[in-house]
């Protein structure tokens, strides 16, 4: 994939909070490699005001990146009643784990729950299947 082209699109900083979802867990129990697990995992939920600012619409494919990795997922408008500008939500999965830091401050515990990353419009790129994620292909 040519990630260079994303550099031309505006990037915004975002803090990602990860969470668990029962439907995603159910899909995982059925099949890790199935479409359902991918569809329920490779998403990022954004505050509607943030989406407006970024020019990103629900269903757009976005590129997330930080110094630990990068991943392409689908943007979805958050269903939270409380605004959460600057914060986005992602279900815990190998897609969110692609961005988790390997720095643990000598604790052995990575910070899975709060991830700093940048987000930009991926202009119709494909979301990687689980087996195409970088973790298994280096």
């Amino acid at each position: 994939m040519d990630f260079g082209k994303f550099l031309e699109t505006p990037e915004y900083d975002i803090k990602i909070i990860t969470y668990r979802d029962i439907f995603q867990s159910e899909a995982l129990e059925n099949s890790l490699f199935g479409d359902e697990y991918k569809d329920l995992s490779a998403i990022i939920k954004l505050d509607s005001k943030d989406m407006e600012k970024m020019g990103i619409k629900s269903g757009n494919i976005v590129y997330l990146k930080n110094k630990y990795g990068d991943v392409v997922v689908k943007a979805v408008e958050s269903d939270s009643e409380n605004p959460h500008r600057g914060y986005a939500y992602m279900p815990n999965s190998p897609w969110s784990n692609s961005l988790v830091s390997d720095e643990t401050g000598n604790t052995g515990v990575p910070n899975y729950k709060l991830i700093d990353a940048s987000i930009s419009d991926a202009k119709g790129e494909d979301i990687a299947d689980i087996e195409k994620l970088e973790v298994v292909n280096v």
Partner: protein
Amino acid sequence: MEDEDKYNVCTACSILCDDIEIETENNSITGVYTACRKGVSRIQTCNEPMPCTLDGKDTDVDTAISETANILKKSENPLIFGLGNSTEGAQKKAIELAKQLNANLDDTSSFCQGPVVEAILNGEINYTCTLDDVRNNADVIVYWGADPANSHPRHLSKYTYFPRGKYRQKGYDEDRTAIAIDVRESSTAEICGNNSYLIPPQKDEELIDALIDALSGKVPKVSFEMNKKRILELANILKKAKYGVIFAGLGLVYSLDNFEPIKRLMDKLNEVSNFYFNPMIGHYNMRGFNQNLFNETGYINRVKFKDSEVKHGYEYSVVELLKNKSVDSALIIGSDPMCSLPGSIARNLNKIPIITIDPCETLTSRKSRINIPSALSGVECGGSAIRMDGVRVNFEPMIETSKISDEEILRRVMEEL
């Protein structure tokens, strides 16, 4: 045919629900009752059962086991990882094997609820109780950084908020208050309604100290937007509790540098009222692994055996071992580190031979040199496990299988060695 008077145990999470009814036909499960979505899905077994393979080609179990022994024998610093989804019998075997091999041994508690379980087993936290105690007595239930509606779907209905209990005959209608403290509006927070408290990430310790102040009659202060009245209102509910319980989720555990704030809060709460503390453990037998290793070595995870010595420390955690590339083979049992570890660390698994023992295909198994299919515990083989609250639960298989258990696989690997 319905097994009318037989209840089964679900092993899809560490509540280990023991009231599961199933229907079977010709030794396959045709109906699952009482379980939640996640449980039903686990009990119906996976869509991609693991084939027995060596270097990507089909092989038989005997060959896979002797090749496993060969790799482990040659390895200078092997890692044994997983076991949160294994029976206690398999866990004990894995500890023996790790000793025999001078291996590193770790599990997922190393990067999730480990610190809490350690504090409980070390006796640093004495305020624990069982889920049955909660059902019978609890009037105030606090979920802090936890969302059981998604992670442990029957926690609220079987044990904490909704059920009638011995001293809580009116259940959630009148007898119980459920509180959620979290950084996002979770499904559990929605159930808690007005008793849901949203805080910014990493501010848990501040809220703990503000609550301690409020419980001590001082004016609580926090640096983030949260009305003092709300904090006082929360402190008041906690103070009036006759039997309160805090269930700590990963949200709370990850946001604290150490355990001191929780200890401060629990001490204060028990000065002014009556409070208990329990971790929300994920995998069905993670606590069993921690307890079995603790009995054997005095440590709950992150150990390295060296002749008769046991070394322990963060440097023996799965994360640091893989990050520093210090292990030269990995035996993965009932776990999928390629999925659950940060990508930046898990990618190092690609550089060493991996052996996976699992009932289902995993991302790790697809990159493994050897895959050995095992019976799915709780469904295809029986055993025992330790529930999230420390209670031992025994279970029988629901159906018969020709696959062997991970305990038996480990036994045979040891024999080959």
